[in-house]
């Protein structure tokens, strides 16, 4: 990897971490699911996916989850966010490949699935299925939050010249 590329990837990671930490400092939107946030850090993840492809985006996502989890003092959150990010990234990648949708929609689906992933982990940990009820509101919430990050990502993508990007869908 060239130093230049490493620098650009690190910049994205830094932005993701920054936004993630800022979000964590705010009180949770839903008291029952404390690890559920607006997901602003996903702007950076989505951009990583757009500009560098799935493998690099996955790497950045992994690092982001681990670092934020370790520093937030609740290592269990790593499990939750990894699960959410994995589903979210995968679905975003597939939708982008299909080239049918605008960015906000791709991100909205990613947002929904991010919450799905987190609830699945919660179900495994608490060994009850009752927690799945929360997905009724979380899905809608995740769709809106995702759409928001998608809009932001769209405008950032427009602002960055294409020679900084190494990937096309």
């Amino acid at each position, binding site marked *: 990897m060239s130093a230049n590329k490493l620098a650009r990837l690190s910049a994205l990671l830094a932005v993701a971490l920054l936004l993630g930490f800022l979000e964590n400092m705010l009180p949770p939107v839903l008291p029952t699911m404390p690890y559920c946030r607006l997901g602003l850090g996903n702007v950076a993840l989505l951009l990583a996916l757009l500009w560098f492809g799935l493998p690099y985006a996955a790497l950045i996502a992994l690092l982001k989850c681990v670092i934020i989890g370790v520093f937030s003092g609740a290592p269990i959150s790593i499990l939750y966010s990894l699960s959410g990010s994995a589903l979210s990234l995968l679905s975003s990648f597939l939708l982008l490949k299909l080239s049918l949708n605008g960015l906000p929609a791709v991100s909205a689906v990613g947002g929904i699935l991010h919450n799905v992933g987190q609830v699945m982990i919660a179900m495994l940990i608490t060994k009850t299925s009752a927690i799945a009820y929360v997905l009724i509101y979380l899905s809608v919430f995740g769709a809106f939050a995702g759409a928001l990050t998608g809009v932001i990502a769209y405008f950032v993508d427009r602002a960055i*010249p294409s020679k900084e990007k190494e990937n096309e869908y």
Partner: protein
Amino acid sequence: MSHNKKNRKSTYSLFRIWDVIVIVVVLLLVALALYFTLSPEKGSRAEVYVSGEKKAELVLSKDAELELNGLKLIVSGGKIWVHSSDCPDKICEKTGKIYKKGQTIVCLPNQVIVRIVGKGEVEAIS
């Protein structure tokens, strides 16, 4: 490094028709998954076991009569009870009407257990 403003058009769009379709589909899929996970709660039923084997299952919402192994069971008004039995001590008859999850009527000589099942708020009662 030149930033040609005219070339800043993104290869991605802000909105396409497919967006609505895809999001609706995904939400429907999530709803479907939820449906299967949180399966509908069954109403109260009474299970009848003879010598440890399940022989009958009666829905309490439907009036019914069942004769087996020397016992006559009656379901009425959401409850089940032993109407008559050929056992010597008749404890099963004396137990009376049961209807709550976990309640049982037991006839030791005839090896019959009647038990109320169904999703309740607790999983067992001590």
